[in-house]
């Protein structure tokens, strides 16, 4: 455990911040340009994982465990969201035989 903490601290904090921002941005772009509901959903998970990584890095650098506990909260709630989200996508697939969000355009003004 000590080795792990030292290993994480061995990399400068800025590198973690940059990496997380890049992964987060990939997630955001994925949500905005992909049209398949499942791929959009995966991009959202990518955003959450970028957050988790950054939280761990900050937590080690501050020498404060609460950041790591927060990661568990995020993982648990992300799992709950996956359960609901996939159920919604399955429900839609049964009705329209597709997961393309462009087909879903009944609600418009």
């Amino acid at each position, binding site marked *: 455990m000590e080795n792990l903490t030292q290993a994480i601290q061995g990399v400068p904090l800025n590198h973690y911040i940059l990496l997380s921002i890049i992964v*987060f941005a990939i997630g955001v772009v994925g949500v905005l340009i992909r049209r398949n509901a499942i791929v959009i959903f995966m991009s959202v998970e990518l955003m959450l994982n*970028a*957050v988790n990584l*950054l939280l761990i890095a*900050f937590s080690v650098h501050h020498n404060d465990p609460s950041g790591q506990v*927060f990661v568990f909260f995020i993982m648990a709630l992300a799992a709950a969201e996956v359960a609901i989200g996939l159920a919604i996508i399955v429900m*839609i697939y049964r*009705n329209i035989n597709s997961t393309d*969000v462009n087909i879903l355009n009944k609600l418009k*003004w």
Partner: protein
Amino acid sequence: MNALILLSILAILVLYLGLYKAKNALLPVSLLGLGAGLILALLEWNSGAAPIYDGMMHFDNFAVAFTSIGIISTMLILLISKDYFEHISDNVAEYYAILLFALVGILVMVSFNNLSMLFIGIEIMSVSLYILAGIRKNDYKSNEAALKYFLTGAFSTGFLLMGITFIYGSTGSFDLGLIKNYVISNPAEISPLLYTGLILMIIGLSFKVGAAPFHFWTPDVYEGSPTIITAFMSTAVKTAGFAAFLRLFMICFAPLHDFWMPVLLVISVLTLFIGNVTALYQHSFKRMLAFSSISHAGYLMFAIIALGPDSVNSVVLYAAAYSIASIIAFAVLILVKRQTGSDNFESFNGLARQNPFIAFTLTIAMLSLAGIPLTAGFIGKFMMFSTVLSEYHVWLVVMAVINAVIGIYYYLKVVVAMYFKSAERSEIQSSPYFNFVIGFSAMLTLIFGVYPSFISNLF
């Protein structure tokens, strides 16, 4: 705090009632539990509660006030949901339970004292609402609303979490008190990470409350969801979103007012114009209400822009006025839609002749939403505008008044349809539950409008 525990147990109890097929007991048990929860919450008024569970939650007067608004709105909505869920499915207990779980999330959101509780509260509420938006499994519109709500909700959670992470990175804590100390103690050398985090949190929370330019999901979700759920989303959920927004900025970031104020100013003006101008073109009453809820988000934002001692009071009053008026509007919409099968303005034609009471209460609700004197909505708008004026944002008030005038036009459109257009229609058979809810809400609207001192001097 006790209210939170009671409501969580109540939701599980309701699930068990469903398991043992006690369908008739669902509504009375839920209402009794909510009533008990309301009393428990009110007992903690002015009790000088300290933060509990290692500073995770703080059930102060702020939390009590918003909890009460949430519980009362939910009670009124449950009353009009009698026989509503039964049309959708045989397993009705789950709907009551999920609605109650969403309310539990709202309670956590309004009483958080730690950013992790803010996140957990928002998620408990949102995850329940994703299910509720899609409870009509075979209805195409309901499906679409659920998916759109889910994808935008999860997306905005990502922004909110990134913001929380940056704030944690710069301050080293999730606790609101410690973050405040960090902001106050060294104003000259605040890490740029904190500012980034602040902007990301504003984006995430604006998504949740449906403020422009992050409002695009609101009309679709509100229109597609079952009307009862739309009523819940535009009253209790909206109020809770603003309570969380206000609580965060009031406790933590008040010293950085000069930094975030211009951002919120732009968001607020955009929200007002987009909400009001688009509402003018709507043919559907339900979609018009969705856009009107966007524009009300703009007015509610005024209290955060002019952050001061009066902010809490004006948000409580405005949110209460807006919630009860919206409940009347949605209740009448359910009745009209049940009869005519459509939610266009034309389906309200001639309602006043056949159902004078329903038409009268809807008129009061519309006047209150438009902000006409002698209704609660006027007092709410008045307090908002005077809060902003005391901070010398004169041109913001000018914008708001222009928008209020635009608002009067589309709110009165339905009143004109009810009173001055004739159509062949039969009388709507309304149940005593509906009559009680719309009568009680209309009475509250008038009482708050004539004697605002009931709730305008709470804080």
